[in-house]
């Protein structure tokens, strides 16, 4: 097995960014087909495809669309392009290399759910992807692919790019909606769910870039063709952002169910000379880490990774070799989550800061042995206690790092230096 290029087939072509280049490869033909279908038929096709949201949560896309109220109330389609999870950079490539692919997917999706207004919410520092999107949207408007009466179908759809100010939590759908509404990017209580009451308190569907792009291929070739890739419960292909201590990091599209070790060894070119695989974070920094032994058993699909106590998440595979200090790495992660917690729910607001302080006490040589258990207790009590999943995202790496690599933490506390690197925190970073 190796890469299967369904979404990314033409990404190597520079002209694929343009309307002409995209059309030359069959772009927007699926839109014609979609307009001849009933919206419900599109939703049914997406349901039948088994497509699960590619942003991280993996919720079935068709089922999410089905939660929209059946009345004719105005509704919104939001594209979640706020790619903030450390290790994740797949959507960036899609927006840069194939902006029309996303736009076509959004028009089809909007037609299916009856939305006349969409936004692409992009992380603020993604300046180049935003330029690519804006250019493509302009081209699409000029070609009558956006706006009023698209391709004479009678369907209207307006699309805008919204540049976020930059907060990890704006990638959470209700946090994104708050931000889009001009408020502080803080998640909202659920229920009500966005499909019932979202942007401007209207029904809203939030889908990831990759999810919306995949819709085009499902409608083009049919759900059953799409399902030929992947596993029974994890259908289709998925883009994986491979980073860390591998020879050739990058984005790779493989069918779900692909062996994790193959991704590292074949697509990633294997470990650097003389280094051994120590651990892998399989689904973005919030996913529990796998040991090398676990990696050997892992396939890149929702069920296999769940079976190993971790998750597919956004598909950001971070490879860690034996030169890395797990205490130091966790220090980076706890700092990130303490910085990014929106500050709304108490366990997350205070817990992320607490974890970060305890970990940095250890790193700076002030740690106590009981701090290791304290990290576990604090993380345990942050899990499942907040409005959104950021608290879990902060807690899960702590729990897995400390549990699976406890010897490194104990050594650090006792010796005041890294077991792996042999140096102190100050020496490591200065």
């Amino acid at each position: 097995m190796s890469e299967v290029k369904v979404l990314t087939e033409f990404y190597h072509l520079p002209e694929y960014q343009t309307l002409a280049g995209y059309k030359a490869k069959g772009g927007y033909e699926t839109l014609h087909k979609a307009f001849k279908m009933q919206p419900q038929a599109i939703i049914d096709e997406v349901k039948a495809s088994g497509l699960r949201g590619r942003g991280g949560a993996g919720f079935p896309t068709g089922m999410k669309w089905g939660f929209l109220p059946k009345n004719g109330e105005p509704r919104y389609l939001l594209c979640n392009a706020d790619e903030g999870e450390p290790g994740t950079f797949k959507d960036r490539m899609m927006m840069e290399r194939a902006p029309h692919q996303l736009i076509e997917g959004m028009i089809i999706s909007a037609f299916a759910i009856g939305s006349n207004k969409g936004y692409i919410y992009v992380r603020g520092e993604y300046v180049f992807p935003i330029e690519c999107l804006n250019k493509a949207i302009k081209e699409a408007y000029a070609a009558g692919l956006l706006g009023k009466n698209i391709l004479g179908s009678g369907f209207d759809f307006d699309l805008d790019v919204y540049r976020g100010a930059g907060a990890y939590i704006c990638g959470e759908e209700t946090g994104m909606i708050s931000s889009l509404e001009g408020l502080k990017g803080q998640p909202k209580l659920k229920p009500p769910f966005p499909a019932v009451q979202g942007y401007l308190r209207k029904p809203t569907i939030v889908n990831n870039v990759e999810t919306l792009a995949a819709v085009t291929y499902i409608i083009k070739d049919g759900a059953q063709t799409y399902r030929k890739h992947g596993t029974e419960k994890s259908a289709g292909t998925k883009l994986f952002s491979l980073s860390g201590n591998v020879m050739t990091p990058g984005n790779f599209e493989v069918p779900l169910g692909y062996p994790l070790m193959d991704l590292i060894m074949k697509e990633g070119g294997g470990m650097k000379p003389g280094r051994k695989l120590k651990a892998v974070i399989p689904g973005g920094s919030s996913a529990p880490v796998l040991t090398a032994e676990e990696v050997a058993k892992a396939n890149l699909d929702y069920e296999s990774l769940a079976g190993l106590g971790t998750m597919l998440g956004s598909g950001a595979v971070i490879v860690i070799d034996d030169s890395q200090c797990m205490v130091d790495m966790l220090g980076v992660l706890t700092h990130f989550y303490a910085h990014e917690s929106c500050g709304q729910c108490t366990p997350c607001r205070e817990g992320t800061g607490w974890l970060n302080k305890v970990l940095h006490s250890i790193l700076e040589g002030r740690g106590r042995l009981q701090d290791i258990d304290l990290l576990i207790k604090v993380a345990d009590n942050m899990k499942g206690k907040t409005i959104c999943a950021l608290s879990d995202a902060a807690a899960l790496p702590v729990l897995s790092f400390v549990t699976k690599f406890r010897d490194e933490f104990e050594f650090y506390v006792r010796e005041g230096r890294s077991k792996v690197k042999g140096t102190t925190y100050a020496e490591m970073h200065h």
Partner: protein
Amino acid sequence: MPKCTINGKEVEVKEGTSIIEAMQQSGDRIAHYCWHPGLSVAGVCRLCMVEIEGNPRVQIACNTMVTEGMKINNTSEKVKDAVKWGLDFHLINHPLDCPICDQAGECGLQDQYMEYGKYDPEMAEHKQKKHKVVDLGPTVVLDSERCILCSRCVRFTEEVSKTNELGLFNRGDRTEIGTHDGMPLDNKYSLNTVDICPVGALTSKDFRFRQRVWYLKDAETVCNGCSTGCNVKVFYNKEGFFRVKPVYNEQVNGHWMCDEGRDIYKFVNREHRLLKAQVRNASGWTEMTAGAAAKNANEVLKNSQGDSLALVLTAQYTVEEFDAIVSSFVNEFKTKKVFFWINNKESFESFDGLLLRGDKNPNTKGLLKVLEKHGITATWADLTSGLNSGAIKTVVVAGPENMNAFPDFADRVKELSKASNLIWLQATKQDALMALTGNVWLIPTKTFVEKDGTFINHAGLEQKFKKATTIVSEALTLTEAALLMVGKNLAIPAVNATFMPNNQREDQVTLEARKKNEFVFRRGSL
């Protein structure tokens, strides 16, 4: 009407009731900070955890609706552990400054800790330092490090006052409450944010550091600041009255009251009061007891019966008092020259849409009802012409208590002093009255916290209230004054005011004063 089981008890609630509301209904205690019945649900403190049968995770009670057959408990070890950790998260960056915190004694965090906490702390790290003594505006001070970010105050300014001054700034454990740039917390309801702050983060400039709350008694009454008639609680001790807070009444004021209303305790205190009656004649002022002065006025009143005698009433007294004094004048002195002194005419009918009404009298409806009952039709123009022509020789005035609402006071005094005899019933000391010449009787009256009675608010709602305490023991109610003025004898039970003479700085409590406070009385000695 779904039925559920809460801690083993069956409870029936209205459709759409949240678990926390159902628990309040069933009398079950539940930890919470961010939930407030007058505000939207924020669900951020994560303390109101409950276990619902069939659900593996504990849930927040404030945002979970009761459904038919739901089995809820908040007494299991799982819930207790979740609440314990919730408290721990609240406390890790909270300063341990209870001994100097103004909220000590009525702090939600203290209360919750005593009920659900009491464990060895596990936090060994430095606390996150935040800003101290932030001046938010004319009425409120913020100690940010005490703030537990429940967002009640922010929601209040968004949802109730709709002034949006407050916001949550920064992220993570650096998050702080603050005012938006260039926008102080300055609205007519700002002090409600202090009431709903569950810790000592928001404090009232007026009350801050003036008293420890356990040195205060409280009593419920009705605000006399305007015709809304908010239900309030007054807080006092032997040193005087110190603050006013709202009491929930769905029909009248909900959970809130205005900032103006919070000032009504000030004129009640001894230093503002007319303590003795003053009677003036050609030879100058003579001090008398209030009862003696009222009795003394009887002579001149008897001689001015009929149309030469006028009664001027402000709508600041109780229905019972109005009835007593108007009856006396109509029946005993045979006059129907009873006049309603309407203050701030221009804004009398205004209403801000929430609570504040332009009619700054608590009992206009009550006064009008009594006037109607006695067939009084006299207008202020009749009084003016009677005074100008000299037809009205004697005027009795029941003056206002709350002077802030009577900007025309001095002008009215001047106008009414045209009468040959002026008998003025008044609770507070007023320079304009002491400057009068001629025949003047100044008789001290009781304020609304010193008597029982009824106010009828703008909507016609009758609200009875009880006496809280006595401040000026000699002061009379209008009823008592009326009986004495018609010449009856009255046995007024001696009630000793236990309030101390306040001759020191407002914020200074001497050792002597401290020895007299309630706490020490109960404990025995210092």
